[in-house]
């Protein structure tokens, strides 16, 4: 297995790990967004969706462990690459012309990623904890998942920080999507221009999709009371 160690510690190997883990996170986000959107179908639909997940709890727990590992590798290699790359370019130029030769998304991955990480901690310590361990998911035999979500999103601070994090997620995904194709070596004159455009479209859909939920529930909480 020495070769795998050598590979994952080589410059291209580290990119490969970033790309594979990033791609898996993208798949997770797609499923997560699809699930979240059931909120728009009302209390019954969302509580029903969460209850279905509850039936598969052991499998969900295994997936959560795998997801944690994916995130650890992605974050660890991300920070490692950032640190090593910074060291390779220890002296900066007096005049920085990087905005003329590369995109904002591509240059700020470590920071957009960092903000997403802060959000992730916040997200897990609120929703994930509340759904799994708070013991408040049922009141008088009625499931409270929907109410937990809507209650959180009534808080303007929480809703706004959620929305801001999703904007950064959009920037992160904008670079990420086309980047994993390049890292795997899939660069083709015919498809790459489309992949780049689709990546931007995908990033917008994901960011707007996730952010629409706090926006919707925050606004409806204003109108409802």
């Amino acid at each position, binding site marked *: 297995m020495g070769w795998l160690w050598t590979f994952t510690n080589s410059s291209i190997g580290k990119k490969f790990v970033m790309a594979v883990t990033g791609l898996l996170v993208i798949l997770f986000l797609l499923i997560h967004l699809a699930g979240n959107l059931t909120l728009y179908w009302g209390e019954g639909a969302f509580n029903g969706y969460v209850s279905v997940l509850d039936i598969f709890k052991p499998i969900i727990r295994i997936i959560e462990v795998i997801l944690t590992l994916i995130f650890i590798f992605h974050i660890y290699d991300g920070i490692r690459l950032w640190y090593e790359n910074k060291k390779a370019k220890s002296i900066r130029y007096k005049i920085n012309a990087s905005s003329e*030769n590369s995109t904002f998304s591509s240059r700020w991955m470590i920071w957009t990623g960092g903000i997403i990480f802060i959000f992730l901690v916040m997200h897990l310590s609120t929703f994930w904890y509340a759904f799994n361990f708070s013991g408040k998911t049922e009141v008088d035999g009625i499931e409270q998942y929907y109410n937990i979500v809507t209650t959180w999103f009534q808080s303007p601070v929480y809703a706004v920080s959620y929305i801001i994090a999703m904007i950064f997620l959009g920037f992160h995904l904008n670079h990420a999507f086309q980047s994993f194709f390049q890292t795997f070596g899939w660069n083709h004159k015919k498809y790459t221009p489309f992949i780049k455009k689709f990546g931007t479209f995908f990033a917008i859909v994901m960011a707007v999709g996730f952010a629409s939920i706090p926006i919707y529930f925050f606004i409806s909480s204003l109108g409802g009371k």
Partner: protein
Amino acid sequence: MSNENLSLTLHIWRQESSKSVGSFEEFKVSVSPDASILEMLDEINNGLEKEGKIPIAFESDCREGICGTCGLVVNGHPHGPLPKTATCQLHMRNFKNGDTIYIEPMRAKPFPVIKDLIIDRSAFDKIQQAGAFISFNTGSAPDANVILISKETADASLDAAECIGCGACVAACKNASAMLFVGAKVSQFSLLPQGQPERYKRVQEMVAVMDEAGFGSCTNTYACEAECPKGISVTNIARMNRDFIKAKFISKEVEV
């Protein structure tokens, strides 16, 4: 076209040796718009020598954009702001009267400054020595066109071979990654039938030397492609990635 001289303020990096601390020195010059940036430096050096001062050290060789010796970073752009142009082909008519221009050496840890604007690019030579060759039988010259290669393949290989090894990709990259250079050098061989015998060994060895030299990793910002004086495409990086990943997964060497 106006032939009036341009008045420019130059900030040029001066550094005595690799160990000393450098700084910018300001020069006010009046220069012909027809002069290249290197010719402007020549003129400044003539003046400095007359005054008994040490001239600005910079490298140049062919001065026609094909040797890759003359890379300077002009206003944050390796080889200056003009696309697909080497420093020696960058003429002062591309600047405006009264402009302020910063001229710096290419920055990267594996490219230490030797003096002023001259950097040590021998890390590139080490990468080349590690695998940028093919093996063939010596003896009488083989007949031409025995191995047929399509025009498209030959073109793609020659496009990669256009790389002049100037280091602009490393200089432009925020990570000081040499992957455009190595990608081009790997691609020019891996595209051709003659390069197949060493294809997967070559990519592994060149990447290993690249990593050892302390170049950063590519984060797909594509600044290299935008700044490359020869317009080398990042498709070559993708090809290198593909070959490297494949090499690591299919080779029978368990330990490396």
